[in-house]
């Protein structure tokens, strides 16, 4: 099916992305200015760009217009973009004062003169905005080419950001690793795209959806299509930092500067989850997953894909948690923790639209905000102009900087899932979605993993507050800018207070479900058994999505 979508409405829907793109161009130029004030205004400009984009979404986005422009899941699209932008502003704030720190110090001391060839701040924020722009394009992808380009636009800038974030060899080594392995993952999912095209003969997601539905009706999605889908999932796993593609995460997270690590552990992850949702929408969760009265799962993903995701989820959370247990570096620990959180969130993808997606979005918000609190605190510290990254360096800093230790503790408690912090509610929703979708064993694995994770998260609470200051923590001082600490503080307060207002934020996602493309009249049949529509309706009644 080839449907011609007029350009005008499509561009109107893309206004937020266009604003971010424009901002990135502006920022890259202004970063080269001779005026110190102008150079220093780069992060502010980047944040304002994101804010403007947010305003464009808040006032200029309507689900109907987006649907007409070919967006398959308009509501999902809107929420994901909003989350990316809000967290993005925080990520800009925590990176203030980090890039070009030495160069600017030298210029201020008069040791050297400003040389546009030797500064990278403008580029850094430009790449940051480009990556954010790429991530924003993903959930609205109408076809595979778009999805591919958006994914690459998300990833390519991050490789450079890792390299330029600090001048050490480790950062460059990390960047090279990140780039090569990223290229390989791209190859994997691109191959998957090719196989899907081979199976369905189309690049349009809505057409692919119809063809797959036909194939299911004739006995199941064919080998080519299934293999293609699985390769895509595996390729996306790289963006999520999920097993078996998670190996790079500890090395790269450790090599990058703290604010960039914060960026890497959120933006590619949310991009990956959005891509996963867009892709899996072609095979569908059959409207909703649920448990019939006899206790069997009806509907749901095709069996091989479900099994793959199930395995990825279980493996990822377990490997991540085991890896985190004995780390000496906070950043390696957080890298493993980030891996395990991906594992939890895959569970939400398995649970599907309704409660599952609601849990996924809430979890992403919770993870993003918590991440900001922790990386805000870490980026707010320095030791002789270098990042703070080992537990030893954090030992006892709570005595000098009680606030920063508190943000770390609050963030860590939230990642752990300690009530009444945000992370607790996110995990609770996730587990309930899992149980309702009939994946109790996976929920039990997740709960056990969650219990194991307490071990290492408690260290991040205990070491800064309870341990005595040691020799390596003596030289740790506040960073040059107070913006990272401020962002951390705001995020920590949000972690505490958001649970009270959570329903307000996700209120309108109660009726959330991917909207079927208008062209596809046929409902996607259930995959494991044919379920009459009436029964589905009845089930929907019982599995009414709950709100938090």
């Amino acid at each position, binding site marked *: 099916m080839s449907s011609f979508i007029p350009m005008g409405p499509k561009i109107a829907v893309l206004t937020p992305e266009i604003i971010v793109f424009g901002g990135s161009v502006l920022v890259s130029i202004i970063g080269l200015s001779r005026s110190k004030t102008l150079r220093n205004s780069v992060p502010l400009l980047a944040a304002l760009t994101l804010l403007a984009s947010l305003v464009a979404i808040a006032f200029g986005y309507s689900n109907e217009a987006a649907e007409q422009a070919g967006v398959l899941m308009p509501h999902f699209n809107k929420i994901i973009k909003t989350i990316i932008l809000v967290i993005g502003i925080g990520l800009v704030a925590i990176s203030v004062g980090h890039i070009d720190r030495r160069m600017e110090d030298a210029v201020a001391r008069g040791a050297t003169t400003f040389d546009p060839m030797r500064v990278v701040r403008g580029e850094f924020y430009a790449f940051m905005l480009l990556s954010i722009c790429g991530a924003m394009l993903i959930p609205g992808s109408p076809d595979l080419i778009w999805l591919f380009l958006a994914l690459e636009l998300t990833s390519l800038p991050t490789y450079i950001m890792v390299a330029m974030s600090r001048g050490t060899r480790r950062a460059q080594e990390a960047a090279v690793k990140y780039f090569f392995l990223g290229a390989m993952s791209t190859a994997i999912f691109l191959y998957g795209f090719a196989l899907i095209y081979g199976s369905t003969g189309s690049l349009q997601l809505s057409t692919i959806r119809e063809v797959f539905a036909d194939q299911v009706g004739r006995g199941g*999605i064919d080998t080519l299509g*299934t293999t293609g889908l*699985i390769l895509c999932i595996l390729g996306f796993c790289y963006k999520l930092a999920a*097993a*078996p593609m998670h*190996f790079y995460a500890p090395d790269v997270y450790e090599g990058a500067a703290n604010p960039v690590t914060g960026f890497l552990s959120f933006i590619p992850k949310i991009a990956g989850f959005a891509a996963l949702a867009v892709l899996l929408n072609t095979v569908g969760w059959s409207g909703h997953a649920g*448990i019939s009265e006899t206790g069997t799962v009806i509907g749901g993903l095709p069996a091989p894909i479900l*099994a793959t995701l199930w395995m990825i989820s279980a493996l990822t959370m377990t490997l991540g948690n085991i890896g985190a247990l004995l780390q000496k570096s906070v950043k390696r620990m957080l890298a493993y923790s980030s891996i395990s959180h991906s594992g939890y969130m895959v569970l939400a993808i398995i649970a599907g639209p309704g409660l599952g997606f609601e849990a996924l979005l809430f979890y992403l918000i919770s993870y993003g905000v918590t991440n900001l609190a922790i990386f805000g605190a870490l980026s707010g510290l320095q030791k002789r102009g270098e990042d703070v990254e080992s537990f030893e360096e954090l030992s006892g800093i709570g005595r000098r900087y009680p606030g920063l230790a508190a943000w770390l503790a609050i963030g860590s408690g939230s990642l752990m899932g300690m009530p009444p912090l945000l992370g607790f509610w996110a995990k609770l929703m996730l587990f309930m979605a899992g149980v309702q979708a009939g994946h109790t064993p996976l929920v039990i694995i997740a709960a056990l993993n969650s219990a194991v994770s307490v071990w290492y998260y408690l260290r991040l609470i205990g070491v800064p507050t309870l341990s005595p200051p040691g020799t390596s923590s003596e030289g740790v001082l506040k960073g040059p800018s107070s913006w990272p600490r401020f962002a951390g503080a705001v995020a920590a307060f949000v972690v505490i207070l958001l649970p009270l207002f959570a329903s307000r934020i996700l209120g309108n996602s109660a009726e959330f479900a991917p909207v079927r493309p208008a062209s596809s009249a046929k409902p996607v049949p259930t*995959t494991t058994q044919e379920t009459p529509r009436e029964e589905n309706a009845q089930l929907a009644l019982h599995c009414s999505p709950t709100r938090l």
Partner: protein
Amino acid sequence: MIPMLSITDTHADSPAHAVVTAIVNAIPSPELGWTGLILLFPAISVVLTGLCCALRVKSKLPGWITVLALAGSFALVLKLYFLRGDAGAPVVVHLWDWMNFSWGNQDKWHSLQADVSVYVDSLTLFWLLFVTGLGTLIAIYATEYMEADVGKGYARFFNGVSIFILAMCTLVMADNLILMYLGWEGVGLASYLLIGYYYKKPAAAAAGQKAFIVNRIGDLGLAVGIWLIWVNYGTIEFNTLFQVWNDADRGVGGFDKALIPYCLMLGAFGKSAQLPLYVWLPDAMEGPTPVSALIHAATMVTAGVYLIARTYPLFTLHPDALATVAWVGGLTAIFSATIGMAQYDFKRVFAYSTISQLGYMFMGLGVGTTFGAAYHTLTHAFFKALLFLTAGAIMHGFAGQLDLRKLSGLRKVPGFKIVSWTMLIGCLWLSAFPYSAGMLSKDVILVQALSGKDHGFVWLGWIGLITAAMTAYYAFRVWFRVCAGPVFYMPGEESHDDHDAHHDDHGAHADPTSTTSHEFHPHAPRWAMNGVLLIIMLGAFATGIPGYMEMRGESNWAQVMMAHSSAFAGSVQAHVTDAVNFGMNPHQLVEVFGTAASLGGIAIAMYFHLLQRKSADKLRAWLLAHNSIRWIPVAMENKWYVDEFYHACVRGPAWIAGHILHFTDKHVVDGLMVNGIGRIPAALGRLFQPLYNGVLQGYATTMAGGAALVVAWVVYRWLTSGVGA
């Protein structure tokens, strides 16, 4: 009118009979959305005073912000009261959604709903009135009392007070048990922060921790209780719970139902400092005195009374539940009175008297007069706040002096007239002087106890009367020692800063290094403190009004308010005329013996502590000289060694267990698990070393291999077995 239903009488052969009232279904009232402002004002104050803390504001600004916010809340509470009257039906004001979970299938459908909503009935209003009213007054008092700390801890103090009022209002206004629990923990937090306000003083820090930890035991009970309520009734929202209770069987339930009241009362005993969890309250006096007055006398400690009154219907789930409450209350009353009689620190005397008076309130709840309990809470809030504030004024003026042997005749010291006479009123009210509010409220409880025939309630009544005599004695022991008699005073230990600062203007002849007693000039309270003392004294008089009306058999607002709340359901109606002791009905009995107890106690105190002060020492020496009875004063002065007992039975074993665990942790966990089992990941790591060695090709191979394995497995499992995907 409330429909009245009578059910099987649990007190079958008692003259009193149980009347169970159906609780009126609450009306959802979105138009009352402004009641949320009662919570919002203190919340704003928390934020603003927090900012003052961060910005190190060096003025009284945070104090006045708090006063303004609390006054705003109080004004709104008054508006609500005048809007609804005494007997308005309960309303639910939904502020916003909070949590709503549901899961399960057709056969078993569970849901857990708790929104940020307000449940306002007469019980809530009753508590709100004195919480916000006294809160405002005490905050005004504190603006002057804490002035030595302006720029240091002043903002932190008022931040704590704002947190407290916010949490307390949440506690009494919550429409569900989880929100109430949030408030319950919030007041605990505020109490902890404020007891440890002078955190540099080890005793204060330790007292804060003690309060927090002892309260945890009670809170565990409350948490389990909430869980059991949800398991049994499927809801934790008060209104739904009451409606379920209205419709369902109200008799004795199964074991898990019967456990509910006991769990709830454990929580109440912890928060309200009853046996066996009272030990934290005397130590809590380490906090600034306005805090003792507000939190540890007038409001927070009555949260337990509120909890039981709010969930009163559930206390009929086990026939002995209310009797347990009554007996724990009665025994606490007399036990802490014995300790109060032998303390020399008069703030501690008042602390023990608080525990004792709370005991009366629990006795009232237990014997079935929720009106008596709530009314005593009200009168006690006023006269005890008054007593603590006068104690605070004396501490403020005499550099922290609290020893009643080192102060005397303050009523003749210039500037302390108002303090002395308001303290007299407080002492009269505390000792249940005939026709004072304290007597009127206490009598309601004692009459009810003496007219009971089950569970030995009559004995409880007598215990209450004996305690009344002891109370009168120790209250006036303080007043006759401190305010009456010859003028004599010694400053306390906090004299230096305050003293020097105060006497800077004395010029050359003042010697700044000297702080001996004859050089010391007391620091008389000014308008804020004196004014608040007078207002609260007037309030203490006013609290007598419902009591007079009750005595004359007229209906009064306190009675009507209790009768139109959940506290009334299941409450026992008094039929006092039948029970006869010494040829008198309980009313006459309490009138005669109560008056005798009060006047007798005051007379004894007058003899030993005003007229013949030496004879008190002689009596003590005589008691100590006789081996067979010397344990009595020794044990009383040492608070019956309860702290030491707990130390030996709880802290000691915990300390030993801690060391055993530390040893285990060091040698077994660290030694075996971390270094042993911990080697497993390390060994696994070594096994997978090629995977994590940081070499790019290795990672690429592993990732590609992993992907290939997954694909191969899927192809093998599904595509070759012929099962349709």
